[in-house]
């Protein structure tokens, strides 16, 4: 973080569902007319990518963008229990975060940047609203079913060198993925995610960054290129930061952060 960057941590939102956020406030003389809302991943992916997204926010702020990083209900420092996480609630949280950043920054334009499930939520939010013009999808979850399968595979792999939990420890109500409960309701909602079938009317500029070789990658590219938005696709050879590392380190992919900041700065000079 640069010495002149101001980061304000605070809670916002309805009293029964307080959300935690950090607002990165650039100096007034450098402030651009577009504010950024960072839509984080969930579960262990949120923990593993926090460092990178914090640095992304810092770099965007240094480039003059007011940035709001926030935790969804039941995630991170926000109120609620982890098993209460639901997609409709998280979409509502994104709307609350957009109102909050508009109130603080006074910015008219908003850019949503989403990683993994955050990318899927950002795209769903854009599809539902008419006032979001810019979208960055960083390795978004394109197929929810594929994402769930991946989580279960990872869970199996992580259980290899540890005592196995007894079968009675899990219930039908949730699946435990690395210490995060995935309720059956959330599983059903995640399964329904299919970004290649989402349309929108408002987005004008879209950047997709992909590090993950996906079977449905082409579908998403074709889908986005058929829309009216100016669409840019970048395939980058960078680490997939949301996976746990063997030594517990948290990876920050500079190349991706640089790409996002330079694209956002180009779109909002």
């Amino acid at each position: 973080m640069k010495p002149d960057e101001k980061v304000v941590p605070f809670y916002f939102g309805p009293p029964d569902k307080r959300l935690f956020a950090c607002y990165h406030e650039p100096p007034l003389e450098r402030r651009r007319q577009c504010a950024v809302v960072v839509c984080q991943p969930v579960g262990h992916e949120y923990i593993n990518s926090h460092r990178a997204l914090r640095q992304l926010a810092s770099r965007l702020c240094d480039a003059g963008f007011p940035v709001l990083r926030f935790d969804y209900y039941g995630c991170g420092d926000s109120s609620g229990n982890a098993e209460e996480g639901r997609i409709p609630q998280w979409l509502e949280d994104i709307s609350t975060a957009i109102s909050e950043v508009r109130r603080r920054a006074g910015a008219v334009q908003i850019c949503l940047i989403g990683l993994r499930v955050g990318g899927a939520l950002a795209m769903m939010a854009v599809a539902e609203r008419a006032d979001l013009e810019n979208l960055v999808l960083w390795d978004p979850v394109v197929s929810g079913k594929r994402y769930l399968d991946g989580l279960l595979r990872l869970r199996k792999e992580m259980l290899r060198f540890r005592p196995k939990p007894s079968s009675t420890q899990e219930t039908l109500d949730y699946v435990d993925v690395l210490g995060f409960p995935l309720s059956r309701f959330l599983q059903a909602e995640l399964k329904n995610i299919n970004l290649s079938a989402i349309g929108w009317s408002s987005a004008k500029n879209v950047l997709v960054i992909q590090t993950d070789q996906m079977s449905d990658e082409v579908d998403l590219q074709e889908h986005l290129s058929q829309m009216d938005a100016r669409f840019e696709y970048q395939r980058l050879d960078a680490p997939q930061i949301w996976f746990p590392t063997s030594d517990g380190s948290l990876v920050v992919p500079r190349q991706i952060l640089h790409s996002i900041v330079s694209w956002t700065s180009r779109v909002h000079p």
Partner: protein
Amino acid sequence: MREEAVFFGEVKSLIGIVTDPPSRNGNHYKPAIILLNPGIVHRVAPGRIYVRIARALAAMGFVVLRFDFSGIGDSPVRYDNLPFDKSTVRETQDAMHFLQTTRGAERFILMGGCSGARVSLQTASCDPRVVGAFLINLQMSEHDDQSSDQISRTAAFYYWNFALFNLKSWCKLLTGTADYRKILRALGFQARRQLPSARKMPPESVQLAAKLRMLAERGVCVAFLYAESDPRLNDLREALGRELRQLRALARVRVEIIPRSDHNFSSLHDQDKLLKKICELIDAITPAAADATIHQRQDWLPRLVEAPTQHGGK
């Protein structure tokens, strides 16, 4: 209970969350609890376990602060070149000062996983305001997480303590489906550890023993909490040996093992067991809190999801 985002520290750059109990009536005498970053993971911790711990302890009437050291999570880096082992102790003291000023706390229990445990111990050793230290999976050496042997070590510990007694593992070994390369590497690691040069008591162990004796004399409660499958548990036993038994006999040092858990407590069941153990220990060392039983605090344990709820969604 109320959660508040706070700034504190020399230049108000440290960011944290204070979880206040629902009511402070009658709780003013209780020590405040500070949770320290587990490694470089931010104050939420793997599996969001710090959030659960903070809420559970606040429900018991404690003020709890979890914050990020400089350069970790949301707190910016320091610009004074103070080494990490010194800056973390100073920042923990800043946290105590903050709670003293804003919540009137005068005594503190420090708690942390991994490197957070080291900082808890170091701060407890040099600050008389600390009355308790909960050291979760304490690493004996500052650099053991970076060791290239870490994976072999974890695997060796697993094979020796768990797979050896598991019928399924033997079946895999005998049917050719086991990872033989990994097993050989783990056996090699175990053999190297038996060499006399590897068994010499490192200076860290001597220092740790001295610190524990000093803390015991000062009346500080030190609790080591280890996941059963964490190889660091062996390190502690090897490092302190008989000394540890003597210290435990003084009843100021406890060693608690969380059964069938791993280093990160990476299942909800592991987390429940850790949380329950922490609450029991806190009850034990702060007897005035004993009126609230574990049973009454079920609200912060994982709940079964009973029915779909409408969140005004899209």
